[in-house]
Every structure is written in C-alpha cells, then in structure tokens.
C-alpha cells in the first residue's frame, strides 16, 4: 500500500513525445483510471510506473521514494496484462506463486496466500489446471490472482478486459471493483472504454495526445468537463456540439442556434456568459438526456422547439432520436411513448440549466 506521484513525466521515442509532462498524485488505496483514445500515452504512462519503460524526463515516486532507476522487480508492484500473460507451462497455482517462489517465501505461506487469493477470486477449483484449459474470464481471474498474492504496493492494470466479450466484461468489471473493495491496494487502471473508467474509478484521468486533459471524479468529469475533448469522450451517446452565437434580444442574453431558433438563457447562465463577446464563434454543448420531448408544463430554463427527426433508435426504456441542426447531427433521448418515428415531426425541449458553452477554436469549456 502506497501513494504514487508523477512529476513532469516525459517519454520520448526518438523525436516523438508520447507522454508530454504529466503531473499526477495518486493517494493510498485510491483507484485511478487512465482513459483516452489509443495513442494518447496512457499505456506508456502505466508502463513507466511499472518500470517497463524508461522515463525520459521527470520523476515517478512510489510510497514517497523516487523509483526512476529502480528495476521493476524492486518497485513492489503487480501488473495485469490485456492478454493475461499467464505462463503457459505452469498450473494456475504455479502461475500465482511464481513471484513468491522467486523470492523464496516459505512453502506454507505461499500455499496460504494462493489459497486465499483463489478463494477471493472464486477459482479454487481451477488451481491445478493449465492456462490452456481456462476460459478468457477465468484466465483474467488468474492474472489478477497472480497480482494479489504478491500483496504489492500498487496494482497496475493494462486494459485487462479488452479481450473479453461484452457480457463478461461487465461481470469482470464488477469483480475488479469487489476485489478492490476487499484488498484496498492502490490501483492504476488503463482503459480506452469510458464506461469502464466511469464505473471503476475513484478518480478518472482523461488523457489525449500525451497530456492530461482533466482529472476528476466520474461525476465531475460528466457534469463539469474542462474541455471539449473530455465533454465528448465521457458519456454515451456523446455530448452534442451545436454551433451558436450569443445575442442580446429585448435586454436578455440569448443563444442563437439558427436563423429561426434562439433560446433565452436562464439567469444563472446568463450571468456567467455575460462577458463573452457577442461575435465569438461558440459551441452549445448539450447531453442527449437534456434534449427530450416537450411536456405540458415547462420548467424554468427549459425551452421548446419543433423539428423533424432523421432517425430514431428505440432502446426499450428510451428512444434515441437524431435530427439535423445547421448541418450538425444532434442526438436526444425521448420517452418511448413520445411518438417519435423516422422522418416524423416532434416538439422537443432543451434543458439549458445543464448546457455548456465552448469556445469553438480552443475547445475550452467557458
């Protein structure tokens, strides 16, 4: 158990900077998820913490000690790989105990730890099997077991669920969360799946182009994204971005989407956006759940408008609707009974209390 700190960590491959100066503090017992598209440097960052990649610049600290030049085996970490990386010629028990055997732990203690980890992961029956005889989910459990028996300071997970099918992934996600609740080991988890990131993490680190875009709890990232990248990456279906301008109409601040559609801003929002130049090109960020069918009584800050739908996607508990606004495809979520159908008209309501306004050029959330 230990905290982990990254200070201006840089990774350079020849001329390419894969990681461009990352600062990150991970508290003891914390579950941190690094998330981002492929090539964003998340795996490289994890591998630098593991010691599998050299650090080009900066410092990495585990438990307060700088470990830049400490070899992986002396960092007291355990890692779970995407393809499990189980030793094919060893049984499950041998796989799990390999690290302990290398360190010459007493036989009794090895057995006790393996038994305990196997019980925790519910793989007691598989202990004498070879990896070949196991299913994907079972192999992933064994890989986790191999990490747990070592009782390391930090767990590192490198896209551990990417090789599993969708159903099993959800199941294993819960398993991982359960295991973390029990062992409470500081965990750094890398994934490209934002759902995994949101569901598992105490705090999520969103990365893009080798930099950290934003660090925050899942809810912070969802409701208060700092950049357009975070806003679009977190949440499914993704947030809509509609080109817009601010306008003063009848003494009130409005947001103009098209020649015909303008919405007055709720007072709190109007106060916040008052200082923005009116000519500036902006984007209105709205999550699909804030574009719904219009109700009889509208609440303050909710504005309605008529549109013609392009496509509808019935999901059962809700229907996703798609329509075009100034050439931008916009997604909304309506009640299945709202009468939405492909090509049909629908009166929609947008909840401007949950709107975001972004600078179109910089992508910053204003």
């Amino acid at each position, binding site marked *: 158990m230990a905290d982990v700190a990254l200070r201006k960590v840089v990774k350079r491959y020849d001329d390419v900077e894969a990681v461009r100066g990352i600062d990150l503090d991970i508290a003891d017992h914390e579950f941190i998820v690094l998330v981002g598209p492929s090539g964003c440097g998340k795996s490289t960052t994890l591998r630098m913490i593991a*010691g599998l990649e050299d650090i080009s610049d900066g410092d990495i600290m585990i438990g307060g000690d700088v470990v830049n030049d400490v070899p992986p085996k002396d960092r007291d970490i355990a890692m779970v*790989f995407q393809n499990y*990386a189980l*030793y094919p010629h060893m049984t499950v028990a041998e796989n799990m105990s390999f*690290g302990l055997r290398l360190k010459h732990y007493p036989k009794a203690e090895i057995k006790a730890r393996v038994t305990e980890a196997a019980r925790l992961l519910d793989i007691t029956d598989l202990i004498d099997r070879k990896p070949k005889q196991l299913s994907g989910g079972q192999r992933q459990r064994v890989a986790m077991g191999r990490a747990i028996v*070592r009782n390391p300071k930090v767990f590192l997970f490198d896209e551990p669920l990417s090789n599993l099918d969708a159903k099993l992934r959800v199941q294993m996600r819960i398993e991982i969360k359960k295991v973390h609740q029990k062992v409470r080991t500081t965990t750094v988890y890398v994934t490209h799946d934002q759902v995994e990131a949101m569901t598992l993490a105490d705090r999520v680190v969103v990365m893009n182009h080798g930099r950290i875009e934003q660090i925050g709890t899942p809810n912070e990232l969802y409701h208060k994204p700092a950049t357009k990248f975070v806003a679009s990456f977190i949440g499914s279906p993704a947030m809509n971005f509609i080109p817009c301008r601010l306008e003063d109409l009848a003494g009130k601040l409005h947001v103009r989407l098209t020649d015909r559609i303008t919405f007055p801003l709720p007072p709190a929002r109007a106060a916040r956006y008052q200082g923005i130049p009116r000519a500036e090109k902006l984007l209105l960020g709205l999550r699909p759940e804030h574009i719904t069918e219009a109700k009889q009584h509208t609440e303050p800050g909710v504005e309605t408008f008529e549109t013609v739908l392009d496509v509808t996607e019935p999901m059962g508990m809700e229907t996703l609707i798609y329509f075009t606004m100034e050439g931008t495809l916009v997604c909304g979520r309506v009640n299945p009974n709202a009468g939405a159908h492909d090509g049909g008209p629908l009166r929609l309501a947008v909840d401007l209390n949950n709107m975001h306004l972004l600078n179109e050029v910089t992508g910053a959330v204003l």
Partner: protein
Amino acid sequence: MSTLAIDKGGPRRKVKYGSMSRDRAWALRWSYFFLVLFAIFFLTPPLYMVITSLKSSAEISAATNPWWVFHPTLANYVELLTSNQFLRFFWNSSIVSLVVVVVTMLISIPAAFALARMKFWGSTTLATGVFLTYLVPDSLLFIPLFKMLALVQDITGITLLNRWYVLLFIYPTLTVPFCTWIMIGYFASIPKELDEAAIIDGASWLQTLTRIFIPVALPGLIAATIFAFTVSWAQFLYPLVFTTSIDQLVLPVGITTTLIKGDVFNWGQIMTGALLGAAPPLIIYAFLMDYYIAGLTAGATKG
C-alpha cells in the same frame, strides 16, 4: 486441378452439385500418386543398402539379380559389431556429436535470447550476421579453418590437428548459427508480455530464460537439438580434413577410409556400416518427430 474445375463448369453442362467431394477425391488421388512416387524415390537407396548388407561379398559380385538376396547372412553385421575399429568410430562419432550438441545449446540459447529480447545496439545486424555465417559453405571454410587451428597449435603447443576433439571446435561453426537462428524465431514468437510479467514478478534475465523461455520454447529447442545432432553425426568434409589417424576417425570418414582399400570396395560392410550409422538419428527422429515439426513451424501461427 483448377483446369479440371473450369472444364466442368463449362456452359453446356448442367451444374453438378457435390463437386466439392469430387474435387477432394481428385486432390486425394494426386496426393497419393506423388507421395507414393516420392516414397519410392527416397526409400529405394536404403532398401538397396539393406539388401546388399545381407549378402556375402561373393554374392554381391556374382551376376545375379541385385534386388534379391538368395543366401541371406548377418556376417557383415557380426564382423562390424565385433570390430574394435568400427566401434571406435562409433564411439568417436557419439562423443563428438553429443558434446557438440551440448556446446551448441549452451551458446545458441543465450545468444538467441539476447538477440530476440534484449534490444541493444546492433542486435538486428548481429542476428542477420548469424544467419549469413550459416550460408558460407564448409567447402570454402575448411582451408582457412585448418590454417587457423595449425596456427593455434603452433603458438600454444597443444596438439589439435589429427585429434578427434578438434571437431568439438569445428562443428559448432556449422550448428551454432542455424540453431541460434531458429531459436531467435521461436523466442520471438513468445508474447512480450510474458517476459514483462516475469520481470515484474521479480525474475532476473537468467531466471526469465531458464524458467519461462526454455520451458515454453521446448519444442523449438528439441528441433534445434536434433538438427545439431544430425549435422554433427553426418558431417564428412571437416573430419576428413582434420583427422587422419585411424583411431581418431568418426563414423562416416572411418567407413570410407577403412572399407575401401585401393580400388577394392567392401560393399557389404560399407552398406552395413552406413545403415548402422543411420540408426541413431533415425531413432531420435522417430521419438521426437512431433516436437521437431512443432518446432520448425513455430511462428507460423501466434503461440
């Protein structure tokens, strides 16, 4: 086969269903035809050797049907197996081949591991260099090698030439490059995460090699071992050049030098000696064939 299929698909004919099995039947017929042809082609010489080895010298030189044994005798076998000279050749061959196999493995395995996994400056060039070495034929190398060893002998005063153990230095020049090369291929097919997992588990490079790589790559290792043994066992040019005294000879050279006296060929014993000499590799192949095939086809699919 494809021309047959096109012919049948001609517009005048009705489409014939079940052509898959017809196609397969023809494929099988052709396979059998060529396989039987190859089997006959390759098995005739050994068969001829067996026939000849069972004949007396008189019968061999008699004008009878050479493909039939009229008076079978084991005299050739008895004579060779009770001849100290022949057993000496056999012993020399065995000890040389076994030691060469061990030396080759001791060099090739760590070399292949280093070239496949430890990225260092010039490792790719070195790996290619290893293979290029193998491409230089021994008929070009034996004279410079002879000169080199003669020089070493002159400087150190240790007798190397005309001693069976000189072959322990010579044979690895043939076996090490090839074995290193196939081991590189085999090691490279082991997923990178496996050694990373071992490193994180606390294994040193040596432990990663001995406890992960060697067990996982065992089929490839056995293939390399068989190759090294076969090459050492069958090598003819080098022992012919480097050893001359009868008691220093290995089997292939021993048979040809002692059983051919001037222009008198003792065919019965030559064939018997060759057959007996072919036995050890044959036995090894028979037992390790599955491993050998698995080893040579490594990397064809992801391991």
